[in-house]
Structures are given as structure tokens and as C-alpha cells.
């Protein structure tokens, strides 16, 4: 993946420069290390590593040793959908409650992964949600979001 590595290397150099600039106005101390010293040291390291990666992969690019990207065809849209679905699940949880939103998310994710036995998917989603809710809320005392039915209406 020389092309991706080349751009990753450049991005790392950019981040390192950003970190370096970001630490310039941090307080200096007479003794010990200041708040900006340690990140600055890391930035130097990242700069060197990023530049090395860019140079190494750049050389390969010049020798035309390009390899195909490690992503199977159609992978990006699927992963993107799954990421958005997961963030939507987290975003909606406080307003809908864990018990209501989790079976929906589970069922949709199962179907998305390729499950075609819908009844099995629905039953599993509800059962898993209830087991997790009871276990974590009442045994482990984790305050999973709960919303009353009247709040939803």
C-alpha cells in the first residue's frame, strides 16, 4: 500500500507540526518538564516516523511497486452505514431508552450482516436486550437509560 502509506506519512508529519505549534504557548517551568515539553518530544518522534514512512513508501511509488488497496469492493459504504447506524443508536438511546432502541439496532445489524431468518433475529434481539438490561441494571447496578412509555408519547 505505498500510496496510502505515503499519504499517511504526510498526515503524520502534518499532525506533528500541529502538535508542535499547539504547544508553543504552553507555560514554561524552571524545574522539571513543562506541560508542552512532553507533547513536543512526541511531536518530534512522530515527525521523524511520519517522514520515514513517507520517504520509504514514496521510493516504492517511484519504483511503481503499487499494490491494491486492502479494502474489498463495496466495503466502504457498508462500513459507513454500520458506523452511522451505531452512532444513531447511541444518539437515540437517551430519548428512547435502552430497552426500546437496542432490539431495533440488534435486529437491523443482524439483517445487515446477512441474517435471513427474521423471526430468529427478532426473538434473539429482544431476548439479548432483556438479559443485558436485567443483568446490568439490577445485578451490576449500571444505570442504563430508561424512558417511560408516557415520555415517548
Amino acid at each position: 500500500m505505498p500510496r496510502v502509506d505515503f499519504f499517511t506519512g504526510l498526515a503524520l508529519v502534518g499532525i506533528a507540526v500541529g502538535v508542535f505549534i499547539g504547544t508553543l504557548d504552553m507555560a514554561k517551568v524552571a524545574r522539571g518538564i513543562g506541560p508542552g515539553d512532553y507533547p513536543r518530544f512526541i511531536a518530534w518522534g512522530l515527525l521523524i516516523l511520519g517522514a520515514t514512512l513517507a520517504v520509504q513508501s514514496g521510493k516504492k511509488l517511484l519504483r511503481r511497486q503499487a499494490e491494491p488497496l486492502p479494502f474489498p469492493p463495496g466495503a466502504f459504504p457498508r462500513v459507513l452505514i454500520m458506523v452511522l447506524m451505531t452512532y444513531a443508536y447511541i444518539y437515540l438511546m437517551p430519548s428512547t431508552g435502552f430497552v426500546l432502541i437496542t432490539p431495533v439496532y440488534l435486529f437491523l445489524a443482524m439483517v445487515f450482516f446477512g441474517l435471513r431468518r427474521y423471526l430468529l433475529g427478532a426473538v434473539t434481539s429482544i431476548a439479548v436486550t432483556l438479559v443485558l438490561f436485567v443483568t446490568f441494571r439490577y445485578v451490576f447496578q449500571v444505570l442504563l437509560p430508561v424512558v417511560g412509555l408516557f415520555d415517548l408519547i
Partner: protein
Amino acid sequence: MEFGYFVQGLMASFAPYTFFMMVVSSIAGIIIGALPGMTASMGIILILPFLYYMPKDVALLMMSGVFCGANFGGAISAILINTPGTPSASATVIDGYQMTRQGKAGKALGMSMVASFVGGIFSSICLLLIAPELAKFALQFQAADYFSLSIFGLSIMASASSRSILKGLISGWVGLLLSTVGIDTIVGVERFTFGIAELGSGFDLLPVLIGVFAVGQFFEESEARKGEYDIIQQELTGLWPTWAEMRSVWVALVVGCIVGIIIGVMPGAGGAIACFMAYNEARRWSKRKDLFGKGSLEGVAAPECANNATTGGDMVPMLTLGVPGDVVTAVMLGALMLIGIKPGPLLFVEQPVLVYTLLAGFITMQIMMLFLGMLSIYGSVRILSIPNTILMPVVMVLCVVGVFTIGNQLYQVGVAVAFGIFGYFMKKLDYPGAPLVLGVILGPMAEDNLNRALLVSANDWSILVRRPISLVFLILAIISIVIPLYTAYRGRERVAPEAEAH
């Protein structure tokens, strides 16, 4: 060691009620450890209300049961679903999950169980025989030594990357950078928080760990098309390691025991650091270095042995000095005080029976855990017979709930998903996740202790080489960095003429 007290303690730990509660707490510990996000300290907090009603010796042994159980339980999810149940199982993921992909989940779990037993027994014996001496050793550690220890830990980055050393280093360095986010502990300046209040406390380890490993894996699985969801058939026979397998991992076990006990007795260092160090050292001493990262039994044995060897070590400073070694023992210390036990040098004099009941119970528990662990393996391996179409979404929800347990915040879940996206790209672009986690763990330790060392020495950097312990760690760090680089260089030199000949 007072033999009479020890026998008394042994008899007390075998009393039916005590023994039953030890079994219950160990099972609870295994379950808590296996759940992503739930840690041993959370487990002890959960059983705290029950401890009030228990006799002191039972309460002590129950806490130890949860501690040891959770340490083993973390390996179950690490091996089966690529999700370390506890930070102590972070290094077990590397080879354990590879073995699962090869259909050897049962073997990996069996080895992790036996390695945990060996580490646990070793640390129990150390606790029994040389606890006061170990405590004195731990007291000698100063800031400069801790800084050098963290540098030694960070030097593992180079060898923890199986394919490209450069990518391993980049991953670790990004981890270090991530560890600087938040309000710094030196003068209280906000660093890279971008005005987001939640970032003030930096990134918690658990969302990073679960995000990079488990959520990243979830996203990677989601990119596959329909009909590609066959389960990996697992061998369910021969879970106990054979004699030949035990012989092949004995070096890893010895390394795990030594690293675990040393890291364990040092306040501030814990299982998460010990597992990576043991993994690295086992790899260095192994005859089959090439198998590490590809499903090596030694790669499972060393970290599991080390993280269990830390359990006894962690207890040493807590019992003998009243100083907690890590978060778990800090919680235990609080719990002990609540039930009327004051740990410290006088504990051994004032309540010898109680102390020796704990020590004897600790050994009994390790033997008991061996059988409880094996039973749990038979049950847990069957998880893998669930098709991925169902298993992966359930694992994802489990991760969401697990991360939510950190302060009941959905923000942390969002962070875990963000790190999941990051972990997905890291996987696809061949960047190992372990060095990143190592950077996040050791970054603050390195910064804080360097600052302290320089404050004490009035900015005299030579303190790092003047202290013998510090010097030893620095030399080890240099060896740890140079050897993989030299090996890689030699490997390339060897390959080049062959390529030219062809």
C-alpha cells in the same frame, strides 16, 4: 513464615461456608472479567455491600476470589471475540484470537487457564514466603526508576509489531500522543482538548481498548458480503495442554512469573503493563519467535501467567505497607478499612491468623480456579458456534454496555466507536493495535515520573543513569529496541542476495 498460623489459615479456608463463598466469588469474578468493560475493581465494588455481613476472613477471600477470577475471565473474551475483558488481557488478544481463527480456541483457553494457575501459584508462594522482603524492594523504587521502567515498557513497541517495526512504532507514538490529551498534571494546563469539556480528563483506557480491538473488529466484519458468515469450527477436545506443549512454553511461564511478580509489587504498575512486558520477554527468549503474532501458545502463556502473577504481587505493598499497588488493590484497601481491617506492617503482628488465612486461601483459590476455569472454558467456547450474523451485533451491544459502565456516560461509548473506526483503518493498513494501547497506558507514567525525577534532582538528567535500578531498565530498553531492528536488518540483508540470485 509461621507454619502453625499457615495450617490454621488453611483449615479456615477449607471451612464449608468459606470455601463455598470462595467458589461463588471466583465464578462471579470470571463472569465480570469476561464482560468487556467490567473490571476486577468494579467487581469488588459490586460485592462490597455483601462484605459487611461476612466474617473478616471470608470477606478478604471473597475479594481475592473476584480479583483472581476477573484476571482469568478477561482472557476468555480476548481469545474468543478479540475483546480484552480487562486491561490485563490486552496482550493475550494478539496470539489468542489468532488461535481462535485457526480453530484452536479451546487450546488457547486451556493454555491461558494453566498459565494463569502457574502465575497465581507462584505469586501466592512469593506472598507467603517473602512478602516483607518484596515490600522493601518495592519501596526502593523512585521516580527515575519508574520513568526508566516505562521507557523499557515502551521499547516493547518495536517488537510488538509483527510485520513492520516502523508501523509498530508509529502506532505506539500515536498512543503516546493520545495520552497527552487532557489537563496536564504539572501546571493544570489544558492540552489538545479543543474546548470539549469531556476531553479534560483525557481518554480512559477502556474505551480505547474496546474501541481499537472489539469495535474495530466489528466494523471489519461488517464489510463482508452476504453468505460469507461461516463459523470457524473449533476443536473442543484436548483443552488441557499436553506434556509436549507444556515443555514448549516453560520459558514463557518462567518469564511470566518473574515479570508478573516484579511488576506486581511495584505500586502504580499493574497487570496491563506486566502482560505486555512478559509477552515481549517471552518472544525474546523463544525458539519460535516467528510464531508470535500468528497464534503462538507461548504468546498466550506468557501474558496470562504474568497478569495472574501480579495478583499476589499487588497484595504485597497493600498488606505489608498499607499502600495500594493499583486500582484494584486501592479498592480492596478501602473495602478492608470499611470492614475494620487496617493493612500495614502491624497487620502481620496483630492479626496473624487473618493474614495467613488469606495467604492459604489464595493458594487454595488458585487450585480451585484451575477447575472452575476449565468448566467455564467448556461453556464459553460454544459461543463461537453462534454464527457471526448474530454474534457480532451482540458483541457490539455488549461493548456499548461495557463502556457505558464507566461513569454511566454515553460520551465514553461515542469515544469507543470513534476508536473503533480508527482501529478499523489501523487493521486495514497493517498498523498493530497493541503498541497504541501500550502508549496510552505508559505515556502518563513516563511523563509524571520524569517530571518528578527532574524536580527532585534539580533538572539533573544524570539521575536516570546514576540510580542502579533505573540504569538496568534503560539498558534493557536499549537492548529491546536494538535487537528487533538488528534482526530486521539482518533479515533484509539475507533476503536481498537471494532476490538478486533469482
